[in-house]
């Protein structure tokens, strides 16, 4: 494994000055793509994902439709200028295809698809800037866009990553930590129902570190969830403020 150009952990602080259990700056806004039925933009530090939802709409081709429930189509894609050095080819890579599936599997337990027979709900996510944890930022953006579209959901799904850096469990990996750390564990969590709907792991983890990590992920998800609630509130409150000049 390649060695990091800078120390990842020094005196208890990470390379960007964060504590192990600290998220980067989280910015969330909903209703940002006017043509879409629902949309959201989510940033964890530099990592920025914009999600748009169309649906429920007629499923095409018809033979893919289900008679008693809706289907979901999720597309995760990275813009060619989103990565740090070289331009990334816009042709969907195997990684993007896998992440699209993982995200769909993370959202389906939350969406009440029985409400939308014979229909399809489209979720499109584009990464405009990538600095680690893109799939979990995408998950948060996607679930907010679904809520913004009024689609029936049992809960929001919040994505955060945890990782292993210098044998320490850390929250919200940036690009450097993702590339040079010892393990990466993206998580998707429903904050009210307390269910994990996305979980992947790479690296080498002991059982203890694994359990510590998924516990830390919950704390991170709860933090982001509050930001998500504020963003949803803002959509409606800002109009009220405009009128009353607060």
């Amino acid at each position, binding site marked *: 494994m390649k060695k990091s150009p800078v120390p990842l952990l020094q005196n208890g602080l990470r390379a960007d000055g964060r504590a192990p259990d600290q998220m980067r700056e989280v910015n969330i806004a909903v209703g940002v793509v006017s043509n879409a*039925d*629902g949309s959201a933009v989510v940033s964890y530090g530099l990592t920025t994902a914009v999600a748009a939802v169309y*649906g*429920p*709409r*007629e499923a095409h081709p018809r033979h893919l439709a289900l*008679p008693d429930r*809706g289907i979901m189509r999720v597309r995760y894609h990275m813009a060619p200028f989103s990565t740090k050095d070289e331009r990334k080819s816009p042709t969907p890579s195997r990684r993007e295809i896998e992440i699209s599936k993982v995200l769909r599997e993370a959202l389906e337990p*939350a969406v*009440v698809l029985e409400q*939308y*027979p*014979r*229909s399809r709900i489209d979720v499109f996510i584009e990464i405009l800037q990538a600095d680690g944890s893109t799939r979990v930022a995408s998950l948060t953006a996607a679930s907010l866009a679904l*809520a*913004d*579209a*009024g*689609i*029936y*959901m*049992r*809960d*929001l799904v919040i994505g955060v990553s945890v990782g292993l850096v210098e044998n320490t469990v850390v929250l919200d990996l940036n690009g450097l930590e993702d590339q040079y750390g010892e393990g990466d564990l993206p998580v998707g969590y*429903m*904050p*009210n*129902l307390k269910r994990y709907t996305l979980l992947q792991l790479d690296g080498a983890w002991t059982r203890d570190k694994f359990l510590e990590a998924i516990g830390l992920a919950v704390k991170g998800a709860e933090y982001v969830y509050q930001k998500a*609630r504020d963003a*949803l*509130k803002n959509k*409606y409150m800002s*109009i*009220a403020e405009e*009128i*009353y000049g607060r």
Partner: protein
Amino acid sequence: MYFVTPRQLIFPGDVVATADSKVEGPVYLDNGRYRSLVVGLVEFRDDGVVIVPLEGVYKPKKGDLVVGYVTDVLATGWEVDVKSFMPAYLPVGEALHKHVDLETTPLTTFLNIGDVVVAKVKDVDLTDEYPIILTLKEDRVGKVESGTVVEIAPVKVPRVIGKKGSMLNTLMELGCDIVVGQNGRIWIRCKDAHDEVFLASIIRKIEAESHVMGLTDRVKAEIENYKRTKQQAAV
């Protein structure tokens, strides 16, 4: 027992009340508690709590009045977009009052792609290939030849009508024809084309500010202002 307060914003997964309470709207039961399925507003009414969604697609009900766009001509009827999760179907038997010989008269003679209809929902059956069936065989429905259609979120339609029709009455002061489709499409026709553009913008304003207090008064004021400006310009 309720866990919410009047006019509170609620989000998917939030607990509304215990299972023995009276709750209406998009909620589900989880472990003896009702949880919200949507982003919505909590309203306390005389007989219980209602969750009013702030967004969402149109859910057709039998008897609804809707404004639809013909999107396809099929063998024995038309496909009509009613802004729902599926297109609706208008069978030829529900569109025409007299018998038509389909061998000699093409359906496009009556309705073609791009036409606009005001229709009633005759039936909704989710197990059918076309779950939503429309009819034109009622009073004051049919093909629309002029005017424009304003699109708003279907959940905002009650706000455009208002309590006991108060908002709709205010809008009528412009002297235009207005038909409110439950599916979030409002057909308007004014004698002056510019009035149509103005009325459309007012309706969209109602949609955007639907959850803010004092909306009816603000709309009244804007309409008065517009009428005054028009009069002055004419002088």
